[in-house]
């Protein structure tokens, strides 16, 4: 049963289980049977998928990993469409990267689904009949079922993406995830803001997808295939490299030498950068990060799905999967840094720090986490950019668990505060449901005041640690993991990234220095804003009556938190460097590195010697971040104060800049969006006036010239005709006496005619 080849041959079952759940729930909805049972269907589906994923993962353990990297387990293939002389085939590819990610997705999704079955119960009473105003239970049940249909499809997309054996297949599942994120972010689309956020998410990621799309087309053009195992063959990579620089390539087309900006980059680098575009969109890297915070309009389990288990991980997974292409300049030494990797590393590092700084000035509990996700994804991306492949994948896995934990924890908090508010103000119902929160009532200096009815605003919380102890404990475990406090999982993965950067810095790569500096700075900022969040939410006295009366959430919501927190605490121990003091050797000498450190292209990564300096630096950054957070938010309740302590330290204008997310949204609104709409209006005007005008003008000219013709026609041409008619008319008038109507006259004439004819014949 644990034979990886036969497991891989049937791994298509993994996405199939959730897909079946999706279809089953759709049928339930269509026949009016959706409801509680739909959640069970979805959980059963993802449970089966998760179980199979874990079995596949376990089968790859025990020394099989390296073999699998060089000859990944491929199952039978399905021809998808004829292409050229061959076929484009779909298949299943399992290697350590895929197997580990698959297991992570399976477990995280299962926890999220169980959590959601309780969290989404509010749907049942959320919808009212528009005419009578009574609660419309049928709609509520259908909506509840629909949620589980969407998340099942979402999980299908992610499973399929991870298992894909070529880029086209991956793109298919990738876009299914895009669709699901659209549907789920816009789940409460009766709120215009949710509909808007859904559209923004889809459009922004689609812009990134265009890069991926072009990249795929380039691979087809140059290599004729996008099958991973062919693509990663050294021969293919060498062929891609053989095209040479962009300058030379363009020159070959034009027939003379040319020089363009960045023309000395190789064409292979261009391909890699295009492919990276897809990751920038999906993994919300700067400058396409804007959709992710808005995605908080979706229900909280969706945020966990998107941020942890599925969509944003897919972007990082894609770079990891295609890593040999990124590093193809250095096939033999995969941890060297190639041209496109500089771009990847720079984008990642910039994103890591910028997003973290924005996170410092947010009040929405989920938005803080959203920016933290962007920032952590930046870590992974920059790690891949400096060749810290194993560290990046490690961080991808640990982050998935602790971020899912944090999101679900925040959902539990929101749920609790909402109930508290509901109890405190009878009649103020389930808040997510209501048409929209009124826009923040007033803004002082561009920063909104707290809306006292907003259950997501951290200024309305405080003191929840006592009201919701289990949520608090698990949330704290997640926070410690995220901020990189030793022993917790995030420390090991984040530290490995920074250690790799430090090591590369020693090799003289300036980009590694940038990554290390920005990464350590971001670690400090991360610790600060997470401390701010923990203190604002859980510590001090409650700021509102809602927070004061918040109950602990239902068991179905809390137990998944407990399970996830186990991963958040202990998962990091599989990747402890061998030389780490005290425990390194005892923990098996970094088994994760041995498991993951091989590439499809044949290269493998060496683990670096342990260096205490970067580890101490990152611990120091995290500790000082926590310390500063405690100093500013922990000692006095923030909610009581009129200005945020941070604002009073760094100044209101700077705080406003952060609160407004560096005005990137406004910039896009003013340039890209406004520009497109203006261009489309201009084109439409052009179409009506110039192009259709030309057509109508041609018609007008035709009509006018027809009038001239008409004159000629009526006078000259028709005159001639009339003359002929008049002449023949006269003649006929003269002839008509012959036509008397008397039969016998005709007979007589005929008789004489015959006679004359005979006479002529005779004569």
């Amino acid at each position: 049963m644990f034979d990886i080849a036969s497991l891989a041959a049937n791994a298509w079952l993994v996405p199939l289980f959730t897909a079946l759940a999706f279809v089953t729930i759709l049928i339930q909805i269509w026949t009016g049977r959706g409801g509680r049972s739909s959640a069970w269907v979805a959980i059963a589906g993802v449970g089966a998928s998760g179980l199979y994923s874990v079995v596949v993962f376990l089968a790859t353990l025990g020394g099989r990993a390296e073999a699998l990297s060089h000859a990944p387990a491929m199952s039978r293939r399905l021809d998808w469409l004829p292409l050229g002389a061959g076929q484009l085939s779909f298949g299943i590819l399992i290697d350590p990267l895929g197997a580990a990610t698959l297991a992570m997705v399976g477990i995280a999704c299962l926890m999220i689904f169980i959590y959601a079955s309780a969290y989404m119960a509010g749907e049942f009473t959320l919808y009212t009949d528009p005419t009578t105003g009574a609660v419309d239970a049928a709609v509520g049940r259908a909506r509840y079922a629909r949620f589980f249909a969407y998340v099942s499809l979402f999980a299908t997309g992610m499973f399929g993406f991870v298992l894909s054996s070529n880029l086209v297949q991956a793109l298919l599942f990738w876009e299914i995830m895009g669709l699901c994120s659209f549907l789920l972010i816009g789940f409460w689309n009766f709120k215009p803001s949710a509909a808007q956020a859904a559209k923004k998410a889809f459009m922004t990621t689609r812009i990134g997808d265009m890069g991926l799309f072009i990249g795929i087309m380039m691979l087809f053009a140059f290599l004729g295939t996008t099958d991973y195992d062919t693509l990663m063959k050294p021969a293919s990579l060498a062929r891609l490299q053989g095209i040479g620089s962009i300058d030379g390539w363009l020159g070959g087309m034009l027939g003379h030498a040319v020089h363009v900006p960045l023309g000395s980059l190789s064409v292979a680098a261009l391909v890699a950068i295009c492919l990276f575009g897809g990751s920038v969109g999906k993994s919300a890297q700067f400058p396409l990060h804007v959709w992710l915070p808005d995605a908080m309009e979706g229900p909280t389990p969706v945020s966990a799905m998107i941020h942890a288990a599925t969509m944003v991980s897919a972007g990082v997974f894609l770079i990891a999967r295609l890593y040999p292409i990124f590093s193809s300049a250095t096939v033999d030494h995969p941890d060297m840094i190639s041209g496109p990797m500089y771009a990847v590393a720079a984008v990642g590092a910039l994103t890591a720090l910028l997003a973290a700084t924005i996170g410092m000035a947010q009040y929405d509990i989920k938005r803080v986490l959203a920016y933290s996700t962007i920032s952590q994804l930046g870590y992974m991306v920059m790690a891949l950019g400096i060749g810290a492949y194993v560290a990046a994948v490690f961080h991808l896995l640990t982050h998935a668990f602790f971020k899912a934990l944090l999101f679900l924890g925040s959902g539990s908090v929101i749920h609790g505060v909402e109930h508290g508010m509901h109890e405190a103000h009878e009649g103020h119902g389930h808040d997510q449901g209501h048409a929209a929160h009124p826009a923040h009532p007033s803004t002082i200096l561009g920063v909104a005041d707290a809306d006292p009815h907003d259950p997501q605003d951290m200024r309305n919380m405080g003191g929840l640690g006592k009201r919701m102890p289990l949520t608090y404990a698990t949330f704290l475990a997640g926070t410690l993991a995220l901020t990189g406090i030793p022993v917790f999982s995030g420390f090991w993965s984040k530290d490995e990234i920074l250690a790799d950067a430090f090591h590369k810095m020693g090799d003289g790569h300036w980009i590694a220095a940038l990554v290390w500096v920005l990464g350590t700075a971001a670690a400090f900022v991360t610790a600060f804003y997470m401390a701010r969040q923990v203190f604002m939410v859980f510590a001090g006295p409650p700021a509102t009556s809602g927070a004061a009366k918040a109950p602990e959430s239902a068991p179905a919501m809390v137990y998944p938190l407990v399970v996830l927190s186990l991963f958040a605490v202990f998962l990091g121990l599989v990747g402890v460097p061998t030389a780490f003091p005290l425990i390194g050797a005892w923990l098996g000498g970094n088994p994760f590195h041995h498991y993951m450190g091989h590439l499809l292209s044949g290269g493998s990564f060496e683990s670096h010697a342990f260096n205490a300096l970067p580890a101490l630096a990152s611990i120091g950054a995290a500790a000082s971040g926590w310390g500063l957070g405690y100093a500013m938010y922990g000692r006095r309740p923030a909610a009581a104060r009129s200005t945020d302590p941070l604002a009073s330290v760094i100044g209101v204008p700077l705080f406003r800049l952060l609160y407004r997310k560096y005005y990137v949204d406004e910039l896009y609104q003013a340039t890209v969006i406004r520009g497109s709409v203006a261009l489309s209006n201009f084109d439409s005007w052009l179409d009506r006036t110039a192009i259709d005008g030309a057509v109508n003008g041609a018609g007008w000219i035709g009509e006018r010239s027809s009038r001239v013709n008409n004159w000629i026609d009526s006078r000259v041409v028709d005159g001639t005709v009339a003359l002929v008619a008049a002449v023949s008319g006269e003649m006929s008038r003269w002839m008509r006496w012959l036509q008397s109507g008397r039969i016998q006259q005709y007979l007589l004439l005929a008789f004489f005619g015959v006679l004359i004819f005979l006479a002529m014949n005779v004569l």
Partner: protein
Amino acid sequence: MTLTSNILTLITFLPLVGMIILMLLRDDRVIKQTAIYWSLLPLALSTYLWWMYDKAAGGFQFEQFAPWIRLGDQFTINFHVGVDGFSVPLIFLTCLLTTISLWYSAGVIQMRVKEYFALFMLLQAGMLGVFVSLDLFMFYVFFEVGLVPMYFLIGIWGGPRREYAAIKFFLYTLAGSVLMLLSLISVVYNTGSFSLVRGDMVSKFVSPAAAIPFLSNPTGTAATLAFVGFLVAMLIKMPSFPFHTWLPDAHVEAPTAGSIILAGVLLKLGTYGMVRVVMPLFPSAFRAMAIPIGFLAFTSIVYGALVAMAQWDFKKLIAYSSVNHMGYVLLGLTASVVAVTAAKDGDAQTAANILQARQAGIDGAVMQMFAHGIITGALFLLVGLIYDTRTHERDFRKLGGGLWRTVPRYGTFLIVAAFASLGLPSLAGFVAEFLVFNGAFGVALNGNLPFLVLTGLSVLGIVFTAAFILWKIIQMLLLGPQNETWIGTPDLTRSEMFMLLPLVAFMFIYGLYPKWLLDYIHPTTTQLVTTMDTALSLPAAPDAASAEAPAP
């Protein structure tokens, strides 16, 4: 004289018989029912045709041949019908959309019922005739036959500005037809044959030796003029920028069923003419003008999407989206002839990649014809369903807001069709766009910079298409707070869902498993490419294709 040997003649002329039968009937109800049931006959036959077509063998099948009109000693106009992998799916599409259109029309057409259904039958015969003709003269005649009924359908049963739209449609497309007629005469005098079977295509009745393509010298004035004549006729019908302005008017004014047929099938006559007539006859002239044509394709894609984004009328928006989608077809077809300076001469892998790309371009274009037919057909049907009998409102601003909640079944169908139109993977439109761009990039990256620029910019069209569909159709109509005006609007009935069901099913089937469709298209594509390569005096083998245009 079995069914199989006569099937094409039967499919084409059964609608005419139906028209005569309809004209003998009196009662409106009986006319409607007879029309619907009668249209099932060609539908059944076309399904059988698809089933029976031997995709492994490829080439023309089910041929029938008879000399028809002798012009002197030299030329014979033949009655020659036959189908290949391009026409089989389109014949099925025509029959399917006709049945759905008639079914829908039976519910909404109350005025001059007999004329309406009779004209529809004539329209169907004309469209089917184009797809089965293998003789240029027959092709031309059928190409024109469809015009008349469509003119009356728009002009009598259309919206408020129906006369203007009808006359514009008629004159515009007729202008193209006149050019085509002149070119047709030129072709016949230059090649001595009306046959559309050329070069390496496989036919029972026409020997390939006799069927040389029209002048393969790209500088020949006669060839170029004749090519331009055919091209403009097809571009108008397609329609491509800048010949597209008849389309929005015609769509907005046409009755719903007219729009379905217009977008679903009539536009395909133009693109089908490209693959059936223009490309086998004029590969050299096409190659010589590939970049300007590619520019038209790019403009149709991006400009069509941008103009669509500015529309507030549901029908007009879909009409412009058709311009955008037909641009993909033109781009894919152009990709198959564009000259390339392969980066590495003599490299077998590069040559194979280029050949693969050229085939993908045509595959994608033909797939897009089918996909656009079902997707846009479904979208126009959905517009009709909400406009004709429910709201009488097509303006997004007034119609919009929370329709998904108000009419959930309608919303579900609309969102599927909209996402298909947007090119979402797993729905049919994506596969077509993927193949088109695969072809366009595949040739351009291997050595045609102007075409590369055009293709690269065309990708923007995908973004803009997504933008207007998400913004206008999905966000404004379906999502958001419910518009109280329409609360209580009845949802789709069972029979209305049955009309939509086959279209949506095909979107999924060919989106999830396109092989079922492309297995028919691809062998024919291979033959077409070989034919063109022979005409371009190129060996078709992949190892030599790279020699096709040495670097200047």
